């Protein structure tokens, strides 16, 4: 297929449709409204349904109903709206329903702002809702990867019967880049024989549920969920690394921030510095093992985020105290510049901090 130039938010919609998703329930919020707008325009053309819900809470519960009925379904929002969706997300994790949820993050807390940020890392990777659950969290760095991960995300969701979250920010949602739509690697997807479709008098009723009143049953259910999460951790980690065998400093960054870091690294290399990069693509499961490959001489790990330090917790877990871990971040919608990162790396390199 030929390349097309697409805005991130619209590319998400196109990718979802490509993945066979015909249903979208959402609520407008900047900076992701182009996605529901795109779906409102495109889904009716393919016999699908776009519905603007009365709230983010209703939207995620519509997704719960639709996913429970066995279809591929999506919702999207931005940070404050995503906070509202947590109830439904927890229920879907509990009832083991597949769906793709897109968070195009903006600054917080509270109403915050509308400019790009990465302040929902904790919410996404630690579980913003109640209970011991995990989402598969995918963090694309460019519009092409966004498209690829949406398409694969639907497969991951169906394979494990688990919600998948795409964690982007206002920048990737708003920017335009060339994309092409590629087939994902084939996965063996199970039949959705658990879905509510009406019994047709041919089988026992199917029940979509997350309530287990007997403690021993709920524990059993949780043990089953944890086994599933372990399998995901074994099979689904995605990470991109650069020069970690040789870097005097290694930077950890994800999403659009990692692109700014790449620009900074090119700048540093021109000045003769050796700098590596670990870019997690899955934020959960986190690529902890990748950090074991960093060379012993490395002077420190610099985590760069558009927040006040959230992924840094995972970086610290990953390096197990072997290297000092530093942080550089901007927040509130301020985007770090390559120059700022260059300066920080030089400070670490020169032992100034």
């Amino acid at each position, binding site marked *: 297929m030929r390349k097309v130039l697409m805005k991130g938010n619209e590319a998400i919609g196109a990718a979802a449709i490509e993945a066979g998703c015909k249903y979208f329930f959402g609520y407008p919020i900047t900076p992701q409204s182009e996605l529901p707008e795109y779906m409102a325009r495109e889904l009716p053309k393919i016999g699908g349904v776009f519905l603007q819900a009365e709230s983010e809470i209703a939207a995620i519960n519509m997704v719960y*109903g639709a996913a429970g009925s066995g279809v591929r379904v999506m919702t999207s929002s931005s940070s404050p709206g995503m906070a509202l969706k947590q109830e439904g997300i927890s*229920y879907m994790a509990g009832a083991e329903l597949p769906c793709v949820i897109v968070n195009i993050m903006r600054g917080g807390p509270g109403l915050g702002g509308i400019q790009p940020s990465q302040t929902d890392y904790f919410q996404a990777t630690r579980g913003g809702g109640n209970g011991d659950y995990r989402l598969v969290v995918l963090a694309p760095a460019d519009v092409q990867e966004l498209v690829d991960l949406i398409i694969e995300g639907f497969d991951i969701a169906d394979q494990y019967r688990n919600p998948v979250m795409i964690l982007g920010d206002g920048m990737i949602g708003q920017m335009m880049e060339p994309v092409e739509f590629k087939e994902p690697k084939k996965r063996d997807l199970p039949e959705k024989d658990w879905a509510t479709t009406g019994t047709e*008098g041919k089988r026992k009723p199917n029940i979509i549920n997350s309530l287990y009143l007997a403690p021993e049953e709920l524990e059993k259910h949780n043990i089953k969920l944890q086994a599933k999460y372990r399998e995901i951790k074994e099979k689904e980690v995605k990470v991109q690394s650069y020069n970690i065998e040789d870097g005097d400093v290694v930077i950890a960054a994800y999403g659009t921030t990692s692109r700014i870091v790449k620009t900074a690294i090119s700048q540093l290399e021109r000045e003769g510095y050796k700098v590596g990069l670990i870019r997690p693509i899955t934020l959960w499961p986190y690529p902890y093992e990748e950090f074991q490959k960093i060379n012993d001489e490395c002077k420190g790990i610099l985590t760069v985020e558009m927040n006040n330090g959230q992924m840094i917790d995972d970086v610290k877990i990953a390096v197990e105290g072997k290297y000092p871990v530093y942080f550089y971040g901007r927040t509130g919608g301020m985007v770090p510049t390559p120059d700022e990162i260059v300066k920080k790396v030089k400070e670490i390199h020169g032992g100034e901090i």
Partner: protein
Amino acid sequence: MTVVFEKTKGLTDVQTHYCPGCTHGIVHRLVGEALEELGVLDKAIGVAPVGCAVLAYNYFNCDMHEAAHGRAPAVATGIKRVRPENFVFTYQGDGDLASIGTAEIVHVAHRGEKISTIFINNAIYGMTGGQMAPTTLIGQKATTAPLGRDEAHSGKPIKMSELLATIDGAKFVERVTVTTPGHVRKAKKAIKECFKLQIEGKGFGIVEVLSTCPTNWGLTPEESLRWLEENMIPYYPLGSFKRPKEDD
């Protein structure tokens, strides 16, 4: 011997957890019978609430979802929009529908979702142990209104049927009760008519059923029925608030 009564196929063969004298059981039976008699049991997908009827998914003999508190109408919307050929209903209590889920119920009516709702109004939170509901009557005692509901503090009880009847997309709104065999028959008729509305694709329908909660009211089952008739019906008048018009 002539069979004069048979349990409906619309209900599963399990013992319910409802308290003795609670009218949930009657309403469950009516819903099950309506599904069976209208021939939609095999394609029905129900949505259970949070509240006393939280386990309704074990009792209705059809595919079921258990929804978060108040969200059953949104869940039902999701199901109906992707499976318009199926019959979709919610079964909700007053805390669920008239308090935490007011936005969801108002907006299914507003969109005219082709789903049916059974609304159990017993003027109290049953499952959590007798707290005040938005439908608790003035002066009625509840664990969170120990001196009785006070209008100055909590307002007057909300009348959901009257409210929903003002919304265009709500095509069938009726309040019934099940305190006597006569009322039970009328209730069943209303539920069937409401369900027919969905089958005919005419829009949103709701039947509010005034119900008892002997346990939390602190009354015997029989006293409860009398209390309902003497206190609830005068405030929540029975009858039809909305029927589909000719051109609906």
